[in-house]
C-alpha cells in the first residue's frame, strides 16, 4: 500500500481515538427538575370556569397524624388564649385553664393573597390529605379532602428521588368554594394544574 496513504489512515485512526476519548470525557450535563419537591397545583376559577385571581387572603392548614394537647385559658371580659404548654402565670391572673386533645396540624401556605393558583405539598405515605382553607373576609373555613396514591420516582440518579402522586378523589365543603374537580390526576414536577377550585360567584366583565 502507498506509504502516504497508510500515514494518512494512521493519522486518521489516532485522531479518531482522540475524538472518542474527548467524547467520553467531554461535557456532561443533566436535566434535573428545578423544583426539589413535588406539589399538587390548584388553579382558581369562578363558578363558570373562568380563571381568576382570588382577592381574599387564603391560609392552608393540614391535619397531621396524631393528637396534641391544647391548653385554653378563658377569663370573663378577655379574649380566649390557646397555648401548647401550660402557663401558670395566666392561671395566677384569674384565667380558667381547660385541657383538650386536638389533631395535630401545620400551616402549608400562610396568607396567600391575590393568587390565581397555589402549590400544596402532598403526604408521602398517607392515602388522604385534609386541607383546611381559612379566609380573611369569610369566617367560615373550607375543608378539602384529597385521596391519592403515592410512589417513588427517579428521573436520573444524580437528581435524587422524588415522590409522585396519583389523585383518586377530591371533595370539599362549600363555604367559599362552589365546587372542585380533578383536571390532571398525575402529580409530578411538570407543573400542570391538577385540581381546579371553582369559587362562588362569577367574575364581572
Amino acid at each position, binding site marked *: *500500500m*502507498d*506509504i502516504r*496513504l*497508510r500515514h494518512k*489512515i*494512521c493519522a*486518521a*485512526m*489516532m485522531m*479518531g*481515538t*482522540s*475524538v*472518542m*476519548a474527548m*467524547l*467520553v*470525557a467531554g461535557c*456532561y*450535563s*443533566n*436535566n434535573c427538575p428545578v423544583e426539589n*419537591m413535588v406539589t399538587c397545583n390548584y388553579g382558581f376559577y369562578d363558578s363558570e370556569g373562568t380563571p381568576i385571581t382570588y382577592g381574599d387572603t387564603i391560609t392552608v392548614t*393540614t391535619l*397531621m*397524624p396524631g393528637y396534641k394537647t391544647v391548653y385554653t385559658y378563658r377569663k370573663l371580659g378577655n379574649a380566649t388564649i390557646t397555648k401548647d404548654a401550660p402557663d401558670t402565670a395566666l392561671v395566677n391572673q384569674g384565667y380558667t385553664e381547660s385541657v383538650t386533645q386536638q389533631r395535630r396540624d*401545620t400551616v*402549608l401556605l400562610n396568607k396567600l393573597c391575590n393568587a390565581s393558583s397555589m402549590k400544596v*405539598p402532598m*403526604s*408521602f*405515605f*398517607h392515602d388522604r390529605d385534609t386541607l383546611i382553607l381559612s379566609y380573611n373576609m369569610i369566617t367560615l373555613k373550607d375543608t378539602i379532602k384529597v385521596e391519592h396514591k403515592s*410512589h*417513588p*420516582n*427517579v*428521573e*436520573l*440518579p*444524580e*437528581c*435524587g*428521588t422524588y*415522590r*409522585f402522586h396519583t389523585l383518586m378523589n377530591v371533595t370539599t365543603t362549600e363555604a367559599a368554594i362552589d365546587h372542585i374537580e380533578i383536571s390532571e390526576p398525575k402529580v409530578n414536577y411538570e407543573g400542570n394544574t391538577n385540581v381546579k377550585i371553582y369559587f362562588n360567584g362569577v367574575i364581572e366583565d
Partner: protein
Amino acid sequence: MLNLSIQFRHIVSAVMMAGASVMAMRAQEQQTEPVMPGERPKPTKYVAVEEQKEHQVFFQGFTLSVDCYGPVAMMVSDYGTLEGALRLNLKNTFFPIIEAGVGKCDKEDFNTKVSYKASAPFARVGIDINMLKDKFQSNRLYLGARYGISMFKYDVAGPAQTDPIWGGSQPFSVKGLDCTSHWAELVFGVEVKIFRNFHMGWAIRYKREIASTKSDYAKPNCIPGYGYTTDSSCWGGTYSLIFDLNWGLKKSHKRGVNVDIRTIENGLQTTDNRQQTTDSAPTPENSQPTTIQENGTEERQEE
C-alpha cells in the same frame, strides 16, 4: 469519582493510540522490507484494470469483529459492553452487519446515593458503506446506520424517603423493572489492515433513542448497547479488532476479483496477446505470480 474515571479514560485512549501507531509502523516496515543481497526480486504479472472491474465478485466474504473499547470502558467506568459483529462484504462497498453483545451498567451517584443496575443483551442491525473511491484496497472509510434494540430489567435503589411535613420514612428499592428500548445510530468509521486478515478500526456513533418503555418508578438511566439516557441522544464509539473470514470464496476471489488462476499462470501469453502487460515486467520461472490491483498495490496470489 467522575474525575477519576475521566483520567482513566484518557490513559486508556492514550494507550490505544500508541498501540495503533506501533502496529501501523510495523506494517510499514513489512511493506518496505528491502531485498536481501542475492535475493531476486519477486516477479510481477499484471492483470488489466478493465478485466478486474468486469469480474468484480458480488459476495466478498464475512468479517468477524470484536470491540476492544467496551470491555475497557466496563472496567474503568460505570458502563461498558462486550460485543462482537458479523458483517457481510458485498462488492467491497456494502457491508450489512449484525452486532450483538451484553451491556452492563452499575452506577451509584456520589451525592444522592441512588444506584442503578442493568445488565442485558442487545442487538443492532444495519449497513456500512465504504466511501473510498478505491474499493479494492484493504483500508476502508465508511458511513453506516444501525437500528438497535434491547430488552432488559433494571434495579433502582436509594436512601429511604422521608416525608418532611407529615413525617414517616420508607426504604426505596425497586427491582426488576421491565424495559424495551429501541434506538437508531449513525456510524462513521475507519479501518486499516494490520496483518494478513486482521484489521483494526474505530467508529464514532451518534445515537438517538426512538422509544423506551415507561415505568412509574424510574426512567431507564442507562440502556445496554445504547448508553446513558441523560439526553434524547448520545455519542458512543467502538475500537474494533476485525478478522476477515473468506469462507466459501475461491482463492482467486480473495481480493474481490474473479480472475482465473490458470489464466494468470499462463498470463504472460494471454496478456501479451491482449497487449495489456508491461514489457518491463520480469517473468522468471518457479515464482509466485502477483497481481497488481487497480490502485497499484501488490497482492500475492496464494497457491
